[in-house]
């Protein structure tokens, strides 16, 4: 495949010719679904020449539950317990976007305090998700110590989630019209203490993992996303920012209270796995900083839920909308069509992994060493459940 720069000139999207496996020169190898070096439950069908990958096909669907069909069977308020299960490590973005889509169509306004609490919840989710990702990236390059540290700290964040919402993983916290509860007593003190500890942890991780010779040698130059590839491949989020784009929905199209918070869009230039990993570490720090700002700025009293109609009979007016938010992997979006009944007509969930794990991964894997494929996969930060839903 050749790269052509320029706006109108497309990349060559032709599929490669299949190789002759019976020649004995090539080996076909399946990585996944039962494999520790794969993110979640998906699989890569690799064709190898020696230990270099010459063809990669992503297979998904192992987690397909038919969410979009199930949501067409349930009422609006029933769906709100369903949506968080779409992206397992990051349920909060689903809850927020589902609520935001309904609010956009029905015109319900959530009160200011609810918006601050939602922002807090989303940033905590981002922190938890990034901590898990750091553990995964460390593990993919053989650094299990980092995985032990960061997953433990993720668990401390989950403890705070439990205080705030009552649940560890699936919080079901953001309802259409607001949030379910305010903050418990003493929560601010505990979260600020954890943020201080997390800062120290991130410094240690930077010292141990990012300055490690092996990690540097293996991650630098791996899976380079060039600037020209970003738009035609639909690359978003940290993967695009590491290639030099300053695109962040929190800044570009501010939602919730992000326009009142002080932060900069972080971007890199090299576009390889190391740059992406380093950028995510910086964004983790940024997330810690944002949590501090939200805690300082959030009003401590006032309503956290708008007046809502009887949810058992709630008919959302006919309409159509697309709402999006910046999750840890980039643009996460909900497209919703309603027809004026008590049941949603159509919901489409747009997860960033959809493009990263299939079109982009199949391209980047070609020419990579088989030993680095797990590290490459993790460095794109993909979550299979949001691909197949």
């Amino acid at each position, binding site marked *: 495949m050749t790269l052509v720069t320029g706006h109108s000139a497309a990349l060559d999207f032709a599929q490669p010719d299949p190789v002759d496996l019976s020649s004995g020169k090539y080996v076909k190898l399946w990585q996944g*679904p*039962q*494999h*520790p070096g794969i993110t*979640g*439950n998906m699989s890569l069908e690799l064709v190898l020449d020696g230990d270099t990958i010459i063809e990669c096909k992503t297979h998904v*669907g*192992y*987690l*397909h*539950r*038919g969410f979009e*069909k*199930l949501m067409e*069977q349930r009422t609006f308020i029933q769906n709100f*317990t*369903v949506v968080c*299960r779409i992206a*397992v*490590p990051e349920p909060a973005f689903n809850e927020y976007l589902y609520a935001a889509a309904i609010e956009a169509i029905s015109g319900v306004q959530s009160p200011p305090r609810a918006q601050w609490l939602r922002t807090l919840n989303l940033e905590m989710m981002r922190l938890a998700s990034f901590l*898990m990702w750091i*553990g995964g990236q460390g593990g993919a390059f053989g650094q299990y110590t980092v*995985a*032990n*540290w960061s*997953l*433990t700290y*993720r*668990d401390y964040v*989950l403890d705070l989630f439990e205080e705030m919402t009552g649940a*560890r*993983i*699936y919080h079901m916290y953001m309802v259409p019209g607001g949030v379910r509860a305010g903050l418990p007593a003493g929560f601010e003190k505990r979260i600020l203490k954890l943020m201080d500890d997390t800062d120290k942890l991130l410094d240690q991780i930077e010292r141990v993992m990012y300055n490690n010779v092996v990690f540097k040698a293996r991650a630098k130059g791996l899976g380079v996303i060039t600037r020209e590839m970003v738009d035609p491949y639909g690359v978003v989020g940290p993967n695009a920012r590491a290639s030099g784009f300053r695109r962040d929905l929190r800044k570009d199209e501010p939602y919730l209270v992000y326009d009142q918070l002080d932060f900069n869009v972080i971007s890199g230039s090299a576009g390889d796995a190391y740059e992406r990993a380093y950028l995510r570490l910086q964004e983790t720090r940024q997330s810690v900083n944002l949590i501090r700002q939200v805690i300082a700025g959030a009003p401590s009293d006032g309503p956290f839920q708008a007046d809502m109609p009887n949810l058992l009979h709630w008919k959302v007016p006919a309409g159509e909308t697309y709402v999006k938010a910046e999750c840890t992997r980039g643009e996460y979006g909900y497209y919703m069509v309603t027809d004026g009944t008590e049941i949603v007509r159509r919901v489409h969930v747009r997860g960033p992994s959809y493009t990263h794990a299939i079109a982009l991964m199949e391209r980047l894997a070609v020419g990579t060493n088989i030993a680095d494929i797990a590290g490459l996969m993790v460095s794109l930060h993909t979550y299979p*459940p949001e691909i197949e839903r």
Partner: protein
Amino acid sequence: MKKTPSTLSTLENAGLSAEDQLLFSNARPRPYEPYPIKAIEDFANWARANSLWILAFGTGCCSIELRPLMTARFDASRFGVAGRPTPRQSSVFIIGGYVSVKTLKRIVRSYEQMQGPKFIIALGSCPANGGMYFDSYNTINQFDLYLPVDLYVTGCMPRPEALLGAILELQDDIKAGKCDGANRYIEHFDEYKANQKKVIKDWNMPDYNW
């Protein structure tokens, strides 16, 4: 070893092409027979219970709680639990929540490749009765129709503490010699296989994956 009627006949392997049938074994699996001396069997069970190796196959949502379980905070290694990348070395299969049809095929394959004695822990409400996906066209509703389950853990999703509790309970059951799921599978092999084939429409693997 005592011969049961089922060991005499062989498997059809009808899902494979004639060429491939030559490559795969068509022998039937045989049930595990305990040692004739009870003290030796008890000792073996004690050893098994304290070295539970989990297959690293995250089949659904609940498997996200396996990472906290295996890392520093909950640290299941204290109980002799370790993750294993290959079914050949594992003795415990943790079904992490809902099972889609496509995954069920891989679960059957991985489970049959595991060496006995082997145990299945099913997490969450989805394997028990379909959970919140009871009307989904792609997830099964009763996992024990397809593979034998030794222990269910309730919750959506179960907490790591519940998983630790499940491991302790499984250890007790193994020590008492009560975990006979793998033998149940082999004794009722034809029924289980018929159920599996009813759901998995494109059966293109051997009837038993040795």
